[in-house]
């Protein structure tokens, strides 16, 4: 090989290496280009406002939400010493407790029923998932009417059953429960649909081999269905809890946080503070607490889930 030729080859090699690097760079640019729309919107409408919320929670602001003076932890201190916030916390946690476990058990029962291979089962599946098509506003209006003390079906049913009537949404002892019942109904459709999907993903050969082994249906439910369904259950529990923390619509229509603030769950409290009382600082502090609350719930879920869930 002559010298100039070798030189030329080295040059071509250098050029190619450069081409390779620039290609990788181009690939990065191209990837980011596809992601740009989403990144932009996440930044403007999620990351930035999250930071801003954090920021606002440390300031006193005017009615428009313009920060005026540094407040330090004043808003948080105030919150934890206010009985109103404590009521709100209690309402939120109770609401989660009232809606999540019963809601999932109900949906699971329906899904197990609807997983049977029977003629016309499609009809029942559609009925059970129907509340997924129901908006919170419409559902709340219907339940509001059902809870109407004078003409609603709820009290008529109680009378018919020989029980005394209840002031559903107006009784501080019953309001949160009433809202919870309505909420469970609203969420059943979605939860049912996901759980049914999870059930149908279980390999039918597992059941067949259980049948050949001659175990009871209850045994195969406990030993096959539930373990195999655990990833789905895990997902459903996480989503349901997060949803419960974020409840707003049914409160706004059914009770407006009352009576005596017994249904003043956190998102409704934030809404009232920010857009009715114009106390943006306090609202932001509560929003920060909501964020961390959900973060902790999710992290705990994942920590527990790691150990308990059987992935196929």
């Amino acid at each position, binding site marked *: 090989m002559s010298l100039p030729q070798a030189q030329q080859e080295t040059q071509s090699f250098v050029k190619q290496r450069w081409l390779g690097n620039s290609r990788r760079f181009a*690939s*990065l640019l*191209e*990837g*980011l*280009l596809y*992601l740009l*729309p*989403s990144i932009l*919107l*996440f930044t403007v*409408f*999620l990351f*930035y*406002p999250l930071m*801003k*919320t954090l920021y606002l929670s440390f300031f006193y602001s005017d009615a428009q939400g313009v920060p005026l003076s540094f407040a330090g932890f004043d808003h948080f201190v105030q919150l934890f010493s206010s009985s109103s916030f404590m009521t709100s916390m209690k309402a939120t946690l109770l609401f989660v407790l009232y809606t999540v476990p019963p809601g999932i058990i109900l949906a699971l029962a329906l899904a197990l*029923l*609807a997983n049977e291979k*029977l003629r016309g*089962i499609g009809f*029942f*599946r*559609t*009925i*059970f*998932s*129907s509340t*997924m*098509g*129901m*908006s*919170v*506003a*419409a559902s709340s*209006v*219907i339940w509001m*009417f059902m809870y*109407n003390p004078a*003409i609603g*079906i709820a009290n*008529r049913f109680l009378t018919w059953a020989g029980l005394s009537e209840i002031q559903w949404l107006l009784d501080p002892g019953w309001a949160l429960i009433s809202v919870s019942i309505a909420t469970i109904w609203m969420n*059943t459709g979605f939860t049912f*649909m996901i759980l049914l*999907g999870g059930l149908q*993903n279980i390999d039918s050969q597992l059941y067949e081999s259980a049948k050949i082994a001659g175990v009871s249906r209850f045994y195969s439910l406990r030993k096959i269905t539930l373990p195999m369904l655990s990833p*789905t259950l895990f*997902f459903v529990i996480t989503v349901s809890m997060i949803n419960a923390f974020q409840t*707003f*619509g049914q409160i706004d229509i059914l009770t407006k946080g009352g009576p005596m603030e017994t249904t003043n769950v956190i998102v409704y409290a*934030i*809404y009232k503070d*920010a857009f009715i009382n114009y106390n*943006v600082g306090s609202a932001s502090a509560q*929003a920060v607490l*909501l*964020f961390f609350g*959900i*973060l902790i719930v*999710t992290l705990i879920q994942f920590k527990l889930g790691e150990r308990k869930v059987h992935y196929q």
Partner: protein
Amino acid sequence: MSWGQKLFTYALLLIAAAIMFFPIIYAFLISFMQGGEVLQGNLWPEEFTLANYINAFEKVPLLTYLFNSLIVSFLIMLGQVIFSSLAAFAFVFIPFKGRNVLFFIFISTMMIPWEATMVPNFQTVQMLGWLNSYTGLTVPFFAMAFGTFLLRQQFKTIPKELYEASQVAGISNFRFFRSVVMPVSKTSLVTLGMYCFLTAWNMYLWPLLVTNDEQVRTVQIGLKQMQSQEISTEWGVVMAGVVMVILPTLLLLFLGQKRLQEGLTKGALK
């Protein structure tokens, strides 16, 4: 299953269905009653009348609200499907440094409760002059981590060889996206679209915050308005409104229940 077991299962199914579907049937029945009957607490209308519907359309601009909801839901659906599929495409087919980190950030946005950001978001939209506009109602929701996640799962099932065959043929990435990935994933896109439409149609808090003008108000807020105006007197009219609101989504759900279920489970579980 033996006959007895079958009968028992059917009985349970029927009872469960009756209870679950009762509130919806109830709303339908009330919407066809005359005012007096409603106040007597009847269950079945003596005579089916459309008076409540006529009334509802006359008293509130229900048609405008329905139209607004349709536009808003459609725009959100379109935006979410397009943005999600673009992002998912990059996450599956374009290898670049930091892709996994970015994906993790995308997924972690699912943990941020939207309500925790609503105050600054309201300020942003106000500053942009987007209050009482379709833009303000829709654009903040275009980016969607769940949709990106769902479509990424779908795109990953596309054989890598299809992409490689395109590379050998010299097809550009965008063309591959447009003429192979999108058509091949039609089913998933439709499922996601349905889900997006449903959630957008049912949105409540954000439209409540950013609209106070009847011209852009969505039907959910219209319903709240009806309910608070008519509450004590005309339940039949309110229920007519309810029926108008739920009819489109119920129909959508009845038509696509199976597909929606399959699509969502796939996304949730893998």
